[in-house]
C-alpha cells in the first residue's frame, strides 16, 4: 500500500508506538484506581505522557494538560467549557467542522460568532480580525493550519492581538502538532487542542487540551476520577476535573512514545524532511497541470496538498489510485466545507495528498508518475 493520507491519520507509526501500546495493554491496571502496583504503573503512564506533551509544547506545568479522545473532544471541552450566553467568538473561514459544529450549536444557546475571512490562498485578514473584536468577544478560535489549503496561520501575531484585547486564544493544532514548533507561552496560546493520531504518531482515540493556568472551564463530563472519592461533586483540581472515566491508557502510552520519537528525531529535522517532500510534490503537481489549493511556497504550508485536475472529478482519481495502484489519498470536502468555500472548491471538493515522515523523495516521485499515467488516459 502507498499511503498518502497522513493528514487524516499518520501511518505507519514508529515501531516504539506499537510496542508501547502492546506493553501497556498487557500490563493492566487502571490509573488512579488504587495504589496497587498495576494501578500505579498506569498512573505513571499518564504522568509520563503529560510530561512529554508539556515539554513538546513549552507548557510550564504538565498538570495543565488534559487527555481527551481526540482534538474534536478537546475543542468541544474548550468551547462549551468556556463560553456562556452573551459571549462572542471569532473564528476563521478555514475552520474544521470540529469547531464549526460546536459553534453552530452554541449559537442556538446564545453564543454569537463571526468568521474572519481568508483569501483564496488562505491568508487571514488580520485587520478584519482586529475590527471585529467587540466588548463581548471572549475567544478567538483558530486553526493552526488548514487541513484543506495547508497554509499555516500567524498564531503568534493573533496571540499578541488577543492579549492586547483581553481575549482568549484557542488553537486547533490538529495539522501542526509534531510537525511545526508550538510554544504556548511564546505564541500566547491560552487553550491548545491537539490530536494524537496525526503528526504526533499516536494511536487513534488520543488527544488533549492544554488549559492555561487560571482559566476556568466547565467540564463536559462528570464522574469518577479515582481522587477525592468521598466527594459527590466533581473535584476542581487539574487535571482530574476534566478526566472523569478511564483514560485510553494503551493509546496514551503510544502517544507518549510518538512524542518521544519526535523529540528524539528533532522537530527541525522532521520539518526539513516534510519541506523537501512538499517541494517535490508541489512542483510535480503543477507540472501535471493541477490546480493547487493554498500557498505555492512549501515553507508556508504543512505537509498536505489538495488539488484538482481539469476534466477530472477528484473522487474519480482517488478511486483509481486506490483500486488500481493501491495508493491511498482522500477526496471530498475533508470535514471542512468552509475551507473549501474559501478556496472556491465547495462544489468540486479536491484530491488531498499528504505524505508523511516515513516517505522518501523517490516514493513521492513514484506517486507523481502514477498520477501522470492516470492523466494521460484523457
Amino acid at each position, binding site marked *: 500500500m502507498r499511503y498518502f493520507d497522513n493528514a487524516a491519520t499518520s501511518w505507519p507509526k514508529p515501531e516504539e508506538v506499537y510496542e508501547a501500546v502492546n506493553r501497556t495493554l498487557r500490563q493492566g491496571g487502571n490509573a488512579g484506581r488504587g495504589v496497587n502496583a498495576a494501578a500505579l504503573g498506569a498512573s505513571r503512564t499518564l504522568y509520563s505522557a503529560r510530561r512529554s506533551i508539556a515539554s513538546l509544547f513549552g507548557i510550564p*506545568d504538565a*498538570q495543565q494538560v488534559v487527555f481527551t479522545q481526540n482534538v474534536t473532544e478537546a475543542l468541544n471541552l474548550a468551547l462549551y467549557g468556556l463560553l456562556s450566553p452573551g459571549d462572542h467568538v471569532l473564528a476563521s473561514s478555514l475552520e474544521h467542522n470540529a469547531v464549526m459544529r460546536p459553534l453552530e450549536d452554541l449559537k442556538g444557546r446564545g453564543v454569537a460568532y463571526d468568521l474572519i475571512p481568508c483569501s483564496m490562498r488562505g491568508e487571514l485578514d488580520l485587520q478584519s480580525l482586529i475590527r471585529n473584536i467587540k466588548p463581548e468577544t471572549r475567544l478567538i478560535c483558530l486553526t493552526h493550519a488548514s487541513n484543506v489549503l495547508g497554509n499555516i496561520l500567524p498564531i503568534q501575531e493573533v496571540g499578541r492581538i488577543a492579549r492586547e484585547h483581553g481575549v482568549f486564544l484557542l488553537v486547533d493544532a490538529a495539522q501542526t502538532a509534531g510537525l511545526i514548533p508550538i510554544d504556548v507561552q511564546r505564541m500566547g496560546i491560552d487553550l491548545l487542542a491537539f490530536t494524537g493520531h496525526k503528526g504526533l504518531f499516536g494511536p487513534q482515540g488520543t488527544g488533549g487540551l492544554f488549559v492555561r493556568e487560571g482559566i476556568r472551564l466547565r467540564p463536559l463530563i462528570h464522574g469518577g476520577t479515582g481522587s477525592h472519592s468521598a466527594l459527590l461533586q466533581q473535584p476542581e483540581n487539574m487535571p*482530574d476535573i476534566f478526566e472523569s472515566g478511564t483514560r485510553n491508557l494503551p493509546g496514551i502510552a503510544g502517544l507518549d512514545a510518538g512524542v518521544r520519537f519526535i523529540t528524539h528525531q528533532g522537530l527541525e529535522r522532521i520539518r526539513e524532511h516534510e519541506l523537501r517532500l512538499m517541494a517535490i510534490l508541489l512542483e510535480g503537481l503543477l507540472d501535471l497541470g493541477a490546480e493547487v489549493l493554498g500557498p505555492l511556497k512549501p515553507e508556508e504550508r504543512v505537509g498536505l496538498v489538495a488539488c484538482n485536475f481539469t476534466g477530472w472529478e477528484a473522487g474519480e482519481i482517488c478511486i483509481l489510485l486506490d483500486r488500481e495502484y493501491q495508493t491511498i489519498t482522500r477526496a471530498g470536502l475533508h470535514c471542512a466545507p468552509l475551507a473549501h468555500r474559501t478556496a472556491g472548491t465547495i462544489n468540486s471538493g479536491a484530491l488531498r495528498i499528504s505524505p508523511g515522515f516515513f516517505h522518501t523523495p523517490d516514493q513521492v516521485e513514484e506517486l507523481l508518475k502514477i498520477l501522470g499515467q492516470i492523466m494521460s488516459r484523457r
Partner: protein
Amino acid sequence: MSEVLVIFPSIHHALAAEELLQSLEYEFVLMPVPPHVAEGCGLGIKIREQISSEIITILCQKAIQVEKTHPLAKGEERK
C-alpha cells in the same frame, strides 16, 4: 519517630513529588491515604515529621500542589 502523610490533589502531583524527592535523595514512602482521611487522590507520601516543613517548602517551590498534611498516629496506616 513521628511521621506525616503528605496528601496531593491528584496522582499527577503525587508522582511529581515522588520524582522530585527521589532526585533529591530524600527518604519517603509512597502509600495509600487511609479512607477515613478522605482527602486527595488516594496516593500520599509518608515522610518523617522532622523534615516535613522542609519538604513542603521544596514542593511549593516546584509548584507541586499539596492538598494537606496529615500526622500519622502509630499504626494508623494499617487501620
